[in-house]
């Protein structure tokens, strides 16, 4: 494509229009008058912010180490740059906090969208139904305007829900990946603690009764302590896996809820749009008919006028004669 904007404004300038007050405009976003739209932009910015954060934190979130150095950050996690976050190493508690915070943000967005949805429904219920002879007396343009605005708002809500669905899906995938890696670690540890029987017994089992023959007392105590430590770690990992599994299930349910709302919104938005367009078409058609009728009626009015004038004159003349 070719940008003709400069050429266009070149012609404007030739027309002695003051171009200083007329720079190539950045669109006006800061002073949106409409409350619904302003609220929608706030929700949108929140979702974009969360989406950006999840992308930045992904590396640190999925790293296997469990060391905490979050105290080294000067700003909260959400405000930190990609460079700072990529160097971060998180422990499981922090990961859970991130999950929780992200879920909370998503939940709050769901609620805000829900309240916008309610406002829209109220607006929609105020549109009178197009039935009954009384409705025909109301201004058709006002009806179309309301329906157009409702269709417009419905599409905005669809967009927000779609965006929210995408970001909750990203969160879901992150958690799922974390869970799978934790399960893999669990499997590895499980293998270590309960090794498989092999046909070659040379390096494998030593019967418990003969253990003291192979190890000294101190070594046995050390082995038992190591074993206990590994068991504890294993149980801890199991717990983490279960916790992650629960939050995963929760986000999956949230995701299902958002998807359901999205599909309902799509159907509703399409219906509203069709209604608005049908009314607009009817108005256009009706206006055309009115214009035709007006031209016809003006001719008819003239004919009647002349006819009645002539009849009146004839009556007068007859009266005089008589």
């Amino acid at each position, binding site marked *: *494509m*070719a*940008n*003709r*904007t400069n*050429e*266009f*404004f070149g*012609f*404007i300038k*030739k*027309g002695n*229009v003051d171009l200083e*007050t007329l720079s*190539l*405009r950045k*669109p*006006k*976003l800061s002073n*949106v*008058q*409409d409350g619904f*739209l302003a609220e929608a*932009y706030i929700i*949108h910015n929140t979702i*974009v912010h969360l*989406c*950006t954060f999840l992308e930045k934190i992904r590396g640190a979130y999925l790293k296997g180490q469990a060391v905490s150095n979050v105290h080294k950050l000067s700003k909260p996690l959400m405000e930190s740059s990609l460079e700072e976050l990529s160097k971060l190493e998180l422990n499981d508690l922090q990961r859970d906090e991130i999950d929780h915070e992200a879920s909370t943000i998503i939940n709050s967005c769901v609620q805000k969208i829900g309240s916008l949805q309610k406002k829209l429904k109220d607006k929609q219920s105020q549109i009178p139904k197009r039935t009954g002879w009384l409705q025909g007396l109301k201004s058709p*343009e006002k009806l*179309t*305007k309301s329906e*157009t*605005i409702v*269709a*417009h*708002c419905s*599409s*905005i809500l*669809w*967009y927000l829900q*779609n965006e929210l669905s995408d970001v909750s899906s990203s969160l*879901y995938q992150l958690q*799922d990946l974390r*869970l799978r890696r934790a399960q893999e670690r669990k499997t590895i540890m499980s293998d270590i603690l309960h090794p498989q029987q092999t046909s070659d017994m040379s390096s494998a089992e030593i019967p418990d009764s003969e253990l003291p023959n192979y190890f000294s007392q101190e070594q046995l105590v050390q082995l038992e302590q190591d074993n206990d430590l590994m068991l504890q770690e294993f149980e801890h990992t199991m717990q983490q896996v279960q916790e992650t599994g629960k939050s*995963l*299930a929760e986000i*999956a*349910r949230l*995701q*299902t809820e958002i*998807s359901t709302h999205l599909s309902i919104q799509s159907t509703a*938005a*399409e219906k509203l*749009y069709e209604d*608005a*367009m049908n009314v*607009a*078409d009817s*108005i*256009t058609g009706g206006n055309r008919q009115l214009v035709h009728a007006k031209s016809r009626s003006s001719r008819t009015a003239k004919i009647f006028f002349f006819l009645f004038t002539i009849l009146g004159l004839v009556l007068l003349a007859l009266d005089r004669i008589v």
Partner: protein
Amino acid sequence: MSLAISNETSTLRETHIRSLEKLLNLNQNVDELEKDPNYKSEFPIWKVLIFDKSGSDTISSVMRITELRKHGVTVHMNITSSRQPIADVPAIYFVQPTEENVEYIIDDLSKGLYESAYVCFSSSIPRSLLEKFAELASKTNTSHMINQVYDQYLNYVVLESDFFSLQLPGVFHTIHSPSSDDALIENTIQSTVNRLFSVIVTLGTIPIIRCPQGSAAELVARKLNQRLKDHLMNTKDVFGTLNPKIRPLLILLDRTVDLVPMINHSWTYQALIHDTLNMHLNRVILESVDEGKVSKQSYDLNGSDYFWEANANKPFPEVAENIDEELTRYKNDANEITRRSGASSLEEFNADAFTDSTYLKAAVSLLPELTARKQLLDMHMSIATTILKAIKERHLDDFFQMEDNVTGLNKSAILSCLEDKDKGTPDDKLRFFIIWYLSVDTVPGADLQAYEEALVNNGCSLEALNFVKRVREITKMTMLASSTTRPMANQPGDNIFGGFSSLSSKFTDRFKEAGIGGLENIISGVKNLIPFRKDGTITSIVQSLMDPGSSSVSKQTESYLVFDPKASHASSDPRGMNKRQIFNEAIVCVLGGGNYLEYGNLMDWAKEQNPPKHITYGSTDVQSPSQFMNEMASLS
């Protein structure tokens, strides 16, 4: 201001959609938007889209309402409709550069319907009109409300991945009608050049143009060559992102090169839908009668439909089998999910019934996909059922078989077909006869009279035939190439149709499950045909031009003119061209009409080459066989 970057693996449709998406995002760079979501916050997300009829056709053939919404379009309306104000949102105008549209835009801005306007003209706005636009904006104090003015070069329609239509009806009539005056022909040629130029701009490429001498194609080629030269000189950066080594061939041909594909009874899925269901701009409308009420259901067939993409160019019996396989696959997948959840069907599926998150995850992600798949398959089932009914009623399989071996038919076979009251509509019979007439060398006068009588007795009007008689000699000269026969690649022998009886019973079962009964006879009556694929005339011409050494038709195309917009010399002499040059990419444009049969034929040929060729095919208008028959009849 850069064009879509030329990528040899990108289809025209992909590039076209990218251009449209850029337009819907206020001409920001969509790739950058996707990388950095924060980039979005500088520009309005939500906007209104206003278009005229041509803009509407361009968008609706490749994008659904959902895709528009994904790019922030809340409402979309026609520029001529009565529209209401929507506060605080800008409007994108996607319209042709006409005085009327410019006045509509200024009128909207004066009334304050929208916050501002991003004006995207579907083709290049002439300088004088742009000046008038600026003048009107200044007079009405609305110039501060206009953010952008762009020439989008999108005044054409893309139907399939590499199939375009310039949406110029009646070009065939204008070129061949004796009553067309020079001014009308000149306007037609100019419109064709403008729209073809848009296709070339979208592809981001400067082709070498070839066309036959002494034809409308030559007129278009000369003007287009000049247009490209001027554009290269004036706007040097427009094609700046090109790979200079990849220059495709643009082949311009007249429809009279071969009239047969336009009226052939074809056996491929897309050609059958176009012929029997009047598919228009990728939309099919099916009528169904339910308890006396006629209801219409419309369906869109486009690139997001995986089944359509895989089966559009396949023979219909194979498509029927594939629908069956897909339905079985769907049932297995659905049963797997319901079995794990304990629900008896997908409708009763409850996510809470899962305790294992692995299955929950699989189910949650699969469920929407399964629902979408079911809807798609239901749509194809409905379409296939309607096509089957049409095949049965009109005996389209018989016509196809006869046309496939048209030169082998004798007089009695032709007469018996024409006189058979049950076989086909009058239109079908006339189509068949014209194909035979164009395919044989001589027809004795007495025989022709007998045929014409039979046609008239069976309700045919002979106007189209009268036109064909006039152009027969011209067309027959160029139709020499269509007799080449090659077997279809990868044909699995008789396996596909060995089990035809099982196919028919499976398909019948599906129909019964879907509540459509009584079609056993239809399927059993339909003949099982996979043809040997013949190269169409245009395919042979394209082959000889892209790969000169390989084709027997080279002599015919050797005399084709050559135009190179990048060359400094003005010669169109084909002798100046390297005769051994092989092209791997080509754009083929037929002036006067195109159809799915030719498109499918070209695509099949291109895939078989080593390395595979990339061909983009299009025409001034895409017509169904009956529409083209009407156009020929209007010329008698």
